[in-house]
């Protein structure tokens, strides 16, 4: 009986959970943090730590998971900046209680506290009038 190979499972779990967590955490932290340099620095430091662990361990299961985490964490650091741009364009909702977002709301006409994506698909495209009404009703 040949043993099972857990390297693939390790890579799969690291990939799925780092993408999921990255997706949720970047949005949440970008929304709450006034100074983005802090989370960007922390995520880069964490990414580099996992990179070091991945390089130094002889264990392939650990190396696989930490190597994937290293790259996704560094990517997440970059995503904080991209998320801020989404807020500026109004594609992600701004948090008026965050001073950085309050400034974005004042300076970018497209920025809004309205969450466009908080709805189920309906199967047809929205007209310009419908979009204006949706945004208007949410003020």
């Amino acid at each position, binding site marked *: 009986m040949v043993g099972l*190979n857990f390297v693939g499972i390790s*890579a799969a779990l690291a990939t799925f959970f780092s*993408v999921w967590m990255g997706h949720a955490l970047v949005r949440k932290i970008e929304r709450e943090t006034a100074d983005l340099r802090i989370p960007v620095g922390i995520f880069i430091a964490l990414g580099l730590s996992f990179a070091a662990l991945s390089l130094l361990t002889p264990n392939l299961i650990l190396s696989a998971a930490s190597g994937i985490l*290293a790259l996704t964490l560094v990517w997440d650091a970059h995503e904080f900046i991209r998320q801020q741009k989404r807020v500026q364009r109004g594609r992600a909702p701004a948090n008026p209680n965050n001073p950085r977002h309050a400034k974005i709301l004042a300076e970018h006409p497209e920025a809004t506290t309205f969450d466009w994506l908080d709805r189920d698909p309906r*199967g047809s*495209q929205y007209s310009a009038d419908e979009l204006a009404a949706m945004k208007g009703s949410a003020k």
Partner: protein
Amino acid sequence: MNWFGLTLGFATLFMIGLGFVWVIRGERYFGRLWWVYVMAAGIAIIAATLFISNNWLSALLGGFGASLVWGSTELNTQAVRGELGWYPFREKKILPPFADVIQKWKAPSL
């Protein structure tokens, strides 16, 4: 120095990037209801990696299968983005088998 994990990390990042492309294109032409099949394929690939003795192949397929599972949960939100006009929209979709059944299920959105 063991470069296995970091090389795999770069390859996985690339596969996640491909995910953005196929989620956008796939939703446009085939529609969100395919999520069941995409998720099932991802889980099947991940399960299969247990029986692959080659570490590189097992790891790469593990990352690929996970990116399929993740992408399957993004199809629903992508459908909304299309309807909002953020991406080119096609009302006519190439529907999956049993689309009428899948329609009644709550699509995962993480």
